């Protein structure tokens, strides 16, 4: 087994989730790395959709931002931003949306807006961007976020993007048509919503990580899956593809 960083484990695991996926909505940062890695490993035909308009972008290296010229230059099609949200995201055409989070709660609701009170925030974060509608309408959502008690909180200070709301039936009551977060990939493992309670449970730990470590890094009483598994470590091929991608 080669040595690797926890970021690398996250990107590799994110890429693996895209094996069977047609189209994926991509932000910048770890989601972009994961999606671009998938195109180089498990799913060469994966369609990357960026919110600035590129549909089917095939960037030769990781874009610096979603405005990067190579996204448009390599895209199958470029839509305007209103079209991206109205014709492509809203009808649920995109199978997977990748999201990050500053705070995440036990129902996978996401906060990227403020820490503290909205009117008098302790920390003002960037805000919603495309996330609320990605979370509402993509077929499913994969959250990629580092696990810590500050980030994994009992209750988010602000719901920027709805996960599973307050539990069973919440998404249906809100009229949200996608399945919501089906996986949360962290630096320690993978969490998935319990089919009944919709509460996130730890289903995988990454190699060398213990369930206790994951529980300590969580601000709520994190439950473990009946069968807790260990993630496959990154293969040589995965690491090689990832490092080439990042270095490009």
């Amino acid at each position: 087994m080669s040595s690797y960083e926890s970021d690398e484990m996250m990107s590799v695991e994110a890429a693996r989730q895209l094996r069977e996926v047609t189209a994926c909505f991509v932000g910048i940062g770890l989601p972009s790395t994961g999606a671009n890695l998938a195109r180089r490993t498990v799913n060469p035909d994966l369609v990357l959709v960026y919110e600035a308009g590129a549909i089917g972008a095939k960037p030769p290296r990781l874009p610096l931002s979603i405005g990067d010229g190579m996204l448009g230059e390599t895209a199958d099609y470029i839509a305007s931003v209103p079209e991206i949200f109205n014709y492509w995201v809203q009808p649920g055409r995109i199978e997977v949306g990748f999201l990050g989070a500053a705070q995440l709660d036990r129902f996978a609701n996401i906060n990227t807006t403020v820490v503290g009170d909205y009117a008098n925030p302790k920390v003002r974060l960037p805000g919603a961007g495309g996330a609320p509608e990605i979370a509402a309408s993509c077929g499913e959502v994969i959250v990629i976020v580092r696990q810590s008690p500050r980030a994994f909180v009992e209750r988010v200070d602000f719901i920027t993007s709805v996960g599973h709301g307050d539990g069973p039936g919440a998404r249906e009551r809100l009229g949200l048509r996608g399945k919501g977060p089906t996986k949360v990939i962290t630096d320690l493992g993978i969490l998935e919503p319990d089919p009944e309670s919709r509460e996130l449970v730890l289903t995988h730990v990454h190699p060398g990580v213990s369930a206790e470590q994951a529980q300590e890094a969580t601000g709520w009483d994190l439950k473990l899956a009946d069968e807790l598994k260990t993630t496959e470590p990154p293969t040589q091929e995965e690491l090689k593809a990832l490092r080439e991608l990042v270095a490009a």
Partner: protein
Amino acid sequence: MTDAVADLVRDGDTVALEGFTHLIPVAAGQELIRQRKRDLTLVRMTPDIVYDQLIGAGCARKLIFSWGGNPGVGSLHRFRAAVQAGELEIEEHSHAGMANRYAAAASGLPFAVLRGYNGTSLPDHTDTIKPITCPFTGEQLTAVPALDLDVGIIHAQRADRQGNVQLWGQTGVQKETVLGARRSIVTVEEIVDELDDKPYSVVLPRWVVTRVCEVPGGAKPSYAQDYYDRDNDAYKAWDATSRDEAEFDKWLEAL
């Protein structure tokens, strides 16, 4: 550009400078700072470093936006400080909501309808998000009002001598920004004799654009496809300048 900004932007105006990380009208934004425009309601889906500069320089009374950050780098410290100090009024939306608000403005409609915001905390804090019921199915959706823009400012790759503007690549909400505003300023990389075909190009015919100004490099340090790439070091450097108020003041003085 000096004249266009002086003639068309008044203190107290609602002004959008758009460009979705590509073709950001940075030079025009900095001209607003130089001309000490005040009490502006600034509109932008992705306020980034030029908006951090406008906010730090005291041009803005209010910001209407959906994502405020230094893309790929981190936070906007002047924006963050102003909000945390309660010095900047904000009206916060999602990208989908903002894009539809631009589209409604361009369409001459008072509002737009989308599936959005349901279950989020945004409607608790933003009064420009309201429920609306489909008169056919009874389904409840969300309405957002059209942006009411005095001035729309964008940067484009080029214009011809008649004033027809052409931009291409990822063109975001730039068409809506011009069509949705009472007055518009377009800075361009170059003025050419004749426009030719470009993939996915948007042409804004001369009769819907108030003023075209040749400003080569007007989107730097952002991208202008087929002219220049993003200067990523400038984005990174801004983090340090913006973080320290004294550094920011020095930057402002030198502008």
